[in-house]
């Protein structure tokens, strides 16, 4: 009996020891795991990031105009099924269709689905299709000799497709582009825009907030005033004003880079303020005084002592500010000032949906909206979960 109690207490002892010797990262992970909604959010987020990154593999067709299906404009989603009146099949299939337009149909395209056995299109897996490349870099320096290209890896396998013609599980838009392929590519774009934007905002916030918080005094007051002023201007009108500078002849890729930078250049004030507040409280701590007395330079103290003291907070702030970047980009592209075809993003995809024709007849244009709500919600849940987990005083209740 007494042996058992000893064993138990030894185990408890071990747990206790593990708790006291755990690094901050381990502690945060422990607390994060207990939060159900944050964990679900994290899984959804991983899934979405995964589908964004591997979009070329997961989607059957090229999301740009070159992947269009000329025969199926504004086509409804085609849901694969296993059974119909002609019997069942282990391999899921969709129907072929015939499109006609005549005076009888009031000159609108009318789709007649043929349910014949021969007209079935069977879904195939790991089909060969349009080529896509990962890790390809082209560097164009002035002078021919300095140009070089890293070829990367090219693949042409796609997760699924059909044996003849096309399959569109989310339908097609007015030019026949596959909405499913576009949605996944758009997730990719949004993640890229968000990453660049957050990175730029982060660097600026660290520089401005860091200087203001570390030196304090007059410099702090002046920087605070500028930060507050930038915060006062409504950001989307300001985005619009900045985005309006983009000359029309810029390529879609250049626009993409510029928009991401603009998002970052306007998004820094909130982050800068947090960095400043934190530094203001930390810089009066004794360990900073000790470092100063030992003759450490300002840069050394900021990098080696102050930054590590709030890395976890910064990571949390970055995760939380991510969805704002994505949403701003969407809003901007939606009104036609942000990204443009052939770059895909949710905003680009939603550009023409306000017409009565789309609202009444082609509601599948709105399918991508749900993916984006999921993406933003996942970020918010994970961000909130991380914030609670990173707060060492919050976990006890």
């Amino acid at each position, binding site marked *: 009996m007494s042996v058992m109690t000893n064993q138990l207490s030894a185990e408890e002892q071990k747990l206790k020891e593990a708790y006291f010797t755990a690094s901050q990262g381990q502690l945060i992970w422990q607390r994060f795991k207990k939060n159900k909604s944050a964990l679900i959010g994290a899984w959804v987020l991983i899934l979405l990031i995964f589908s964004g990154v591997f979009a070329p593999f997961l989607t059957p067709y090229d999301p740009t105009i070159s992947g269009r299906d000329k025969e199926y404009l504004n086509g409804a989603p085609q849901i694969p099924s296993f059974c119909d009146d002609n019997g069942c099949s282990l391999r899921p299939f969709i129907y072929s269709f015939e499109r006609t337009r005549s005076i009888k149909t009031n000159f609108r395209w009318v789709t007649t689905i043929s349910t014949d056995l021969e007209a079935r299109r069977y879904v195939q897996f790991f089909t060969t299709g349009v080529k896509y490349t990962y890790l390809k870099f082209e560097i164009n320096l002035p002078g021919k000799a300095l140009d070089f290209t890293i070829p990367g890896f090219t693949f042409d396998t796609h997760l699924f497709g059909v044996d003849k013609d096309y399959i569109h599980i989310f339908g097609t838009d007015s030019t026949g582009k596959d909405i499913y392929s576009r949605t996944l590519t758009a997730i990719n774009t949004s993640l890229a825009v968000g990453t660049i934007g957050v990175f730029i905002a982060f660097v600026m916030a660290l520089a401005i907030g860091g200087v203001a918080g570390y030196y304090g005094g007059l410099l702090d007051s002046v920087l605070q*005033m*500028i930060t*507050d*002023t*930038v*915060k*006062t*201007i*409504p*950001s*989307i*009108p*300001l985005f*619009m*004003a*900045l*985005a*309006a*500078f983009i*000359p029309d002849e810029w390529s879609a890729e250049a626009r993409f880079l510029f928009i991401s930078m603009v998002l970052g250049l306007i998004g820094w004030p909130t982050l800068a303020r947090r960095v400043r507040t934190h530094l203001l409280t930390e810089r009066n701590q004794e360990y900073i005084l000790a470092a100063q007395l030992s003759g450490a330079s300002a840069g050394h103290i900021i990098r080696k002592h102050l930054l590590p003291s709030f890395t976890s907070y910064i990571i949390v702030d970055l995760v939380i500010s991510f*969805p704002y970047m994505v*949403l701003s980009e*969407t*809003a901007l592209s*939606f*009104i*036609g*000032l942000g990204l443009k075809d052939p770059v895909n993003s949710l905003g680009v995809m*939603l550009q023409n*949906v*306000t017409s*009565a024709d789309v*609202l*009444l007849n082609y*509601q599948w244009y*709105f399918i991508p*909206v749900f993916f*984006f*709500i999921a993406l*933003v*919600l996942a970020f*918010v*849940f994970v961000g909130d979960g991380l914030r609670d987990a990173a707060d060492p005083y919050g976990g006890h209740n």
Partner: protein
Amino acid sequence: MLQFSKFVAIRAFLAIFTLVLVSFIVFSLMELVPGDCAERYVAFKSSQGTVITMADIQVERVRLGLDRPYLERWGKWIFNAFQGEYGDSCILRLNISQLLGQKFWLSLGLCLSALLLAYAIAIPVGILAATSKNAFLNNSLRLVSYLGLALPNFLLALMIMLFSTVYFGDSLTGLFSKQFRDAPWSYDKVLDFLGHAWLPIFILGWSATAFAIQTVRALMSDEIGKLYVTAAEARGVSGAKLLMRYPARHALSPIVNSLGFDLNRIFNELPIVALILTLTEAGSLLIDALARSNDQQLAGAIIFMLTAAIVAINFVTDIILALTDPRVRRGIVG
């Protein structure tokens, strides 16, 4: 009293300083846009069949004062802007203040109503959420506030349009019915306006409400556990009287302070919501100015006016806060 007027003076100075800084940013942005007014005017003449030369552009520049130094022109712009005069839009060739006039006040009215709506909902609901132990209520409120972030106003507007078109066959757009659009204000027109305005106000207030509920709830939860509340309870105060008289008063004062930023958030969404709901009377002028015609004078004027409205709200809320809470005035005067 002296302390109070000192506080007002400092705040007024800060507000004006912010506006000057904003005007500098806005003016610089306007200057950065390629092509100036002189080129536009002359280009217009050229499209009318007149043959023009570089010298003509130069003459036009001198006439418009565009050859003056940068700072001088900025000074002139800001001086006029404070008097509500923004010059002419060189694309539309119309006076900007006349063009904006009623539209701006209409937009501001929409945004302020949205703000009012947000807090009219958020304050009681937030207080209720902070005091109630009901898990279902708390969880559903959490979900609503998350949705407020994840479903931004313009997506909400799109979704509402989608559903109303599919189920009611009416897209619920516009601010006035056809027959009232250009009519002078009358009792019927006001009624018609209210019949249309509720939807944009609801949509604009949507995110703000979700955020406000979160804030009220957090502030209230912080206050409610404090000792002075327990002390009041021990003296026999209870129920709504206890809440309103003790924790709510303290919890709500930071909110007054953040009204300006809430208005900022609502203004943010206005142009896009206006575009979706085709509110030609509000907000969409900014999109026209930027996206379609690159009209920097108009865009600059609108952004400046929006910011001025926010700064004004910030100023007023600061004064209100100082009137009700002596700690605030002492905090800034020192």
